[in-house]
């Protein structure tokens, strides 16, 4: 079920409408989980998301629509996660954000002088539509996203799959724009690699 406008969705949530709740669980829950994992780590992310849901439901009557409902919900997740960290006097788990120099494309694909030694081969399946017509490839992409470090998972899903602005993502995840861009690129390069591998395997089959 899709909602015409968010104020209608918010109203139905406040009224305790079952299909409205089902809709937000389906549409928001995994994003909430990714954001929580990025900040507190996987072990207590589920708990943080549950705490955040309670805060969301409590605060719904105060939602003013200045951002999208999803952004507002994810900010609440982020705040719950940060509060949790403070309580446990831990610092934010920036994941691999520290390791900013790591390459997105494996170093062994380049020569010492920086030229390609293993350049990308032309793809037989070269449009998004054709790529997505393969259920196998879709599954591979989902599995790869699932295995990414949590912060990369958050960034690539919010940016590329959900179309959220980088500024908003940085606010939610509490990271700098330059870090977020490196992490986004690294996540994309990882997906590029699995698509490349898939194309190679198709060639072998032909």
């Amino acid at each position, binding site marked *: 079920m899709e909602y015409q406008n968010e104020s209608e969705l918010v109203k139905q949530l406040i009224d305790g409408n079952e299909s409205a709740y089902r809709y937000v669980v389906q549409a928001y*829950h995994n*994003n909430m989980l990714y954001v929580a994992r990025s900040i507190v780590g996987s072990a207590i992310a589920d708990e943080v998301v549950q705490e955040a849901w309670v805060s969301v439901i409590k605060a719904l009557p105060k939602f003013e629509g200045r951002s999208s409902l999803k952004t507002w919900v994810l900010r609440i997740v982020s705040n719950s996660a940060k509060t949790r960290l403070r309580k446990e006097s831990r610092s934010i788990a920036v994941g691999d954000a520290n390791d900013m120099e790591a390459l997105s494309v494996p170093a062994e694909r380049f020569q010492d002088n920086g*030229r390609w030694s293993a350049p990308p081969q032309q793809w037989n399946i070269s449009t998004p539509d054709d*790529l997505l017509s393969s259920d196998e490839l879709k599954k591979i992409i989902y599995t790869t996203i699932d295995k990414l470090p949590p912060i990369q998972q958050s960034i690539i899903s919010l940016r590329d799959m*959900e179309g959220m602005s980088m500024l908003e993502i940085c606010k939610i995840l509490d990271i700098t724009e330059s870090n977020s861009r490196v992490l986004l690129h690294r996540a994309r*390069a990882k997906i590029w690699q699995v698509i490349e591998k898939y194309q190679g395997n198709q060639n072998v089959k032909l």
Partner: protein
Amino acid sequence: MLSCKDISKLASDHIDNNLPPLMKMKVKMHLFMCKKCREFVNQLNTTVETLKSLKIPQPEESFVEQQTKDLLEIAKSFNSDNSINKKH
């Protein structure tokens, strides 16, 4: 001169049009001359476009079922609190 390795690091910023003017020009120069990097940038672009058409995976149906039930319970408890407050 930028190397192919440099281009491989800058490709997302190039695709997203997020490079400062001078760097943007350097990347364009390299791509003009280097077929391999053009191929890489095209493929990365296709990757991003593919991701844009994908939805983020939804939780398992059994989870959605249980979570919806739990959240409704919480919502009801808040609603009854609110109505008690209103009466007083």
